[in-house]
């Protein structure tokens, strides 16, 4: 599905690839708060999240030439790098890191509010609609996995369910999601 509007951040990437620090700064201003939020959700630690964020933008500086405009938007690309780095950090704490949910990050409700949904992009709205078609438990476990970057083991511990069961919930959920997104 082609995005309706040209990616507003794409021109920055070619400038960054050419060694333009002002362009990297502009990209940072436009995207860092969201990426910081993403890292904090996964790591629940400010200092580690700052380290990851720094790592992300240094990586972008070095690899901007590898960004392929046709494949994904800049924010998708950045989001994937940030999540990946944050999850690497989390794994360094062991497979059961964050097996106990934090009080304020309870597994229950990550569903976006109606207001957020109205502002969401077409793709986000579509994904939300497809998630809504899953049973509530599968929806929750997929959301928690995405937002907190925890392992199957940690999810199983949190939900007090056997590992194989959690695994099959997620695998089936992802298959349904694909069926819904690509009818």
């Amino acid at each position: 599905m082609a995005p309706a509007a040209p990616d507003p951040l794409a021109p920055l990437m070619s400038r960054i690839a050419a060694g333009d620090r002002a362009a990297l700064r502009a990209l940072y201003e436009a995207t860092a708060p969201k990426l910081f939020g993403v890292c904090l959700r996964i790591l629940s630690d400010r200092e580690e999240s700052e380290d990851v964020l720094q790592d992300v933008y240094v990586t972008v500086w070095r690899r901007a030439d590898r960004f392929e405009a046709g494949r994904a938007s800049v924010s998708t690309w950045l989001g994937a790098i940030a999540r990946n780095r944050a999850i690497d950090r989390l794994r360094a704490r062991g497979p059961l890191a964050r097996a106990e949910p934090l009080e304020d990050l309870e597994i229950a409700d990550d569903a976006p509010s109606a207001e957020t949904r109205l502002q969401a992009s077409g793709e986000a709205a579509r994904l939300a609609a497809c998630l809504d078609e899953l049973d509530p438990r599968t929806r929750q476990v997929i959301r928690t996995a995405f937002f907190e970057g925890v392992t199957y083991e940690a999810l199983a511990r949190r939900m007090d369910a056997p590992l194989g069961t959690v695994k099959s919930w997620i695998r089936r959920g992802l298959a349904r999601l694909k069926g819904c997104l690509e009818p």
Partner: protein
Amino acid sequence: MSEPKDLPESEALAAEHALGVLSGPERAAAEARLARDPAFAAEVAAWRTKLAPLAEAVAPVPPPEGLWPAIARALPANDDVAARRRLRFWRGATIGSLGLAAASLAAAALLASRPPIAVAPAPPAPILNASLMSPGQGDRPMFVAAYDPVRRALIVTSLAQPGADPAHVHELWIIPADGKPHPIGMIEPGRSKAMPMPKAMAPMFAPGAAIAVSVEPPGGSPRKTAPSGPIAAMGKLSRI
């Protein structure tokens, strides 16, 4: 919703990796496979794209004030550090031979004439060329540039000697009819590159507009909207 088929094993693994539920060793194995298996890499990329909109729901949190300066300090001068170290400036440096200039012109023309990636519905607009001359350096250009309106890209070749001045870089500027310079990007001595231009800047690339190169500190002109250093070379765009 009808019961969908299970994902094929390879795609299921790609989806799990994109979602981020694999344990440390499983992640490492998936990353290793990513590097050598393009089909698997494409599946992971596709799943990352599918799931990415979820991140829109995450509330943004402003990072601390001091983080950008820390990042700016951590940036390497450039990926191509060796090339920058070899930077040699136009001042006093011998500019490439006429033979090199001709070869680079040919290279620029070849780059410019490559078929556009996007399908262009309109008849192709003519390519504009500029030879950027240095004051006091005779009739040999120091840079050659070609603007391809179909690809919306400026193809630039630097004929400056790669070499001596690691303290400075060459920054390109477009100066349209109103005389206000706009930064285009950096070019390393002796290199060619295609620089895609944002849509808003495309109209500036018209016959008669000037392209200039200034000598700047690493990272480009701190003034952002105007060169801070001396002009190394300048030339006007025209149809050949």
